[in-house]
């Protein structure tokens, strides 16, 4: 079976208008210059220190994530539609979170099964009945999108906790501007550099009631051994806030303080880049050294804001994902602008039967999995692999969902032989505070291996700059 993929640059043999300038640019670039620029880009990345450590793989902790110099382009019209769809989704997800930690209307209305929410391991009983400042649970919503046709965008998954990768969005642009200034003079490309300032404002806007004066915002990192540490320090730097680890903070007199050379300083908003389970050993995992004892008490008493709010993870689970269109209708009274990928829940007997019969054509994922681990790509797997996976599904059906293998669009990429189409996805970062904001762009991930549909950096994916052209 041959699948035809939507090529974002070419329509048959003809170059789409959107890519006309870039096509000329790649055509006129001699191979030696391209190699030289590629080496220069790598050198820049290494010197700035953007490296990516892959969990559990060992090897070089200073490995670079591959950078593809050929940008991806969206028109203003395309982007406006995406923007509306993303903001709509971010609003609905937050409304859902407020609801399920409050009255649970959507469950009472029978629009989503109770066990999927209350029985979910990401549901945080510790915050039931608590309303975070401004009613926001997820302050940075990363929505993974794929495209299958000119007008066809699908949401692959939502990330409501702490989506990473935004530093690549910013650095990819920075490096492209440095290496190819002419491209930016000749094309009208919407800037993305406002992101850190918007993030800071978003975080400051959800300061708790007990904060008087200018809120002190900090980023809480698990530490410099974490694979995303570079991003944490990069954002702290650009926002002009402190980057703290658990032991830098302590709780006293009902407030959170950081240890400074001048004595304790009060902290109002914590943008945490650690999981719920590690936030507070008194409330969650007692053996965790990463968190701050007593933090949750202060949080529930309104002494500090935690972003994303503990418990936000219940909205981005792959089983709850199926119900996001329903949330949009229920809370906003609107029709979803962005479509979900049709999803079968292996927990449901009917769905399970369908999945097991069609494993060869489907993509199967773990409900709580991420990073491209623990998944089966049917069309790319052997019979033995499929049979083994079928056993796993029968053993623990609730742990799996399945989706059709999508014909992911391709963008031209620089590869060893020259320029060739490679599959891509897109992660924009939507900021939710007093306002909902989105910078025009996002992180485009590209599966650099020919034919591969897996774009995760842990599985050999790369990144590229993403342009939204101005009107």
């Amino acid at each position, binding site marked *: 079976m041959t699948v035809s993929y939507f090529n974002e640059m070419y329509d048959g043999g003809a170059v789409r208008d959107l890519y006309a300038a870039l096509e000329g640019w790649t055509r006129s670039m001699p191979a030696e210059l391209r190699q030289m620029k590629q080496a220069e880009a790598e050198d820049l990345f290494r*010197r700035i*220190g953007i490296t990516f450590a892959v969990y559990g793989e060992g090897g070089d902790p200073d490995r670079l994530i591959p950078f593809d110099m050929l940008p991806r382009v969206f028109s203003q019209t395309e982007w406006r539609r995406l923007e509306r769809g993303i903001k709509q989704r971010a609003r609905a997800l937050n409304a859902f979170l407020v609801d399920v930690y409050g009255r649970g209307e959507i469950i009472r209305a029978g629009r989503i099964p109770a066990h999927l929410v209350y029985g979910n391991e990401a549901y945080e009983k510790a915050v039931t009945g608590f309303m975070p400042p401004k009613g926001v649970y997820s302050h940075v919503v990363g929505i993974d999108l794929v495209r299958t046709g000119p007008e066809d965008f699908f949401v692959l998954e939502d990330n409501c906790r702490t989506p990473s990768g935004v530093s690549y969005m910013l650095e990819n642009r920075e490096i492209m501007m440095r290496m190819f200034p002419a491209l930016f003079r000749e094309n009208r490309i919407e800037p993305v550099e406002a992101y850190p300032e918007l993030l800071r404002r978003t975080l400051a806007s959800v300061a708790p009631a007990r904060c008087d004066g200018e809120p002190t915002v900090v980023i809480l990192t698990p530490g410099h051994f974490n694979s995303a540490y570079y991003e944490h320090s990069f954002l702290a*730097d650009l926002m002009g806030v402190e980057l703290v680890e658990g*032991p830098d903070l302590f709780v006293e007199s009902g407030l959170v303080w*950081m*240890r*400074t*050379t*001048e*004595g304790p300083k009060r902290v109002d908003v914590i943008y945490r880049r650690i999981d719920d389970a590690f936030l507070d050993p008194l409330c969650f995992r007692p053996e965790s050294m990463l968190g701050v004892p007593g933090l949750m008490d202060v949080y529930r008493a309104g002494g500090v804001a935690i972003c994303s709010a503990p418990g936000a993870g219940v909205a981005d689970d792959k089983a709850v994902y199926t119900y996001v269109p329903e949330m949009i209708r229920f809370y906003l009274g609107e029709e979803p602008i962005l479509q979900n990928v049709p999803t079968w829940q292996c927990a449901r007997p009917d769905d399970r039967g369908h999945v097991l019969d069609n494993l060869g054509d489907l993509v199967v994922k773990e409900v709580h999995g991420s990073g491209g681990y623990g998944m089966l790509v049917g069309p790319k797997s052997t019979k033995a692999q499929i049979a083994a996976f079928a056993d796993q599904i029968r053993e623990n059906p609730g742990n799996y969902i399945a989706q059709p293998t999508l014909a992911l669009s391709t963008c031209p990429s620089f590869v060893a032989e020259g320029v060739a189409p490679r599959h891509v996805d897109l992660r924009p970062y939507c900021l939710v505070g007093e306002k909902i904001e989105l910078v025009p762009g996002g992180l485009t991930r590209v599966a650099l291996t020919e034919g591969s549909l897996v774009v995760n950096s842990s599985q050999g994916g790369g990144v590229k700059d993403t342009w939204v052209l101005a009107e």
Partner: protein
Amino acid sequence: MLSRTADNLFWIGRYMERAETSARLLEVGARIALLPSTGHGYRNEWDSLLQASGTAAGFAKKYGDPVQRNIESYLFFDRDNPSSVASCLERARENGRIVRTALTAQVWDALNTAFQQLRQLEREERSTVETGRLTEWTMRHAAQVRGAIDTTLLRNDGYDFLGLGYRLERADNTARLIDVKYYVLLPRADYVGTGLDSYQWTTLLRALSAHRAFHWAYGGEITPAKVAHFLIFNRQCPRSLLTSIAGAAAHLDHLATAYERVTPAQDAAESLRDEVAGLTVEQVFDEGMHEFLTRFIRQIDRIGAVVHETYLSGETR
């Protein structure tokens, strides 16, 4: 600033300075080993160097007898030696990576470049790498880091913690280097004043990049009293004990002003500075150079401990 950040900055300074000292020590050893009299009745100089840098036990455990090639490996490349150039550069860079937000791109670039080049150097065939090249390589990168700090870093409290680390480490290291010459290398009084004695003093000055400066400042023959004065008391000598401790006191002074609070750290540094400034070469010789240096190093240690307690531990109230 965060206490932990201040701590990381302080240690970047200490590690960078220590890397340089290990390289200087290597230089002293290599030059002394060029003397024809080596091995004829003196204690092995290399062994003495290891004693002075406090790494003799670790070396003996790993390599046994001090052979020049092994000592070079140990002082430069060996990660088991916490004071080796490689260990220090790696840790300085790791501390830098943790506090990227407190450094300029240029300072980070200098730290990171040194580390990346070190990895390349480690891949080269050892027999093609001359000791002199290793020393120069270290000096060059240390200078690049200092230069980036000097020209790009904001003069805020972070700058003072970084500078404080450099100065305290330098005070300690210069004291140890003098001790190598004075106590360890030439233990018997009847060698004083011989050609060997003068050669060793010259080597020490060279190792501190202070050979020409010394001649310019004092002229004439190299005598122990002059060198001691130069390396202990001369405020023009950038590595003298007095310059180092006065520099540390000045950084602490800035901190006290910026934070509007005087702490025991200021008192400790100022009292040591004033004590050294009030001494003469004769008094040092009377006390015994080794005894004086040992006492000095202990006091520097104490200042380090007070600084930790006051600013870096996070227990500040």
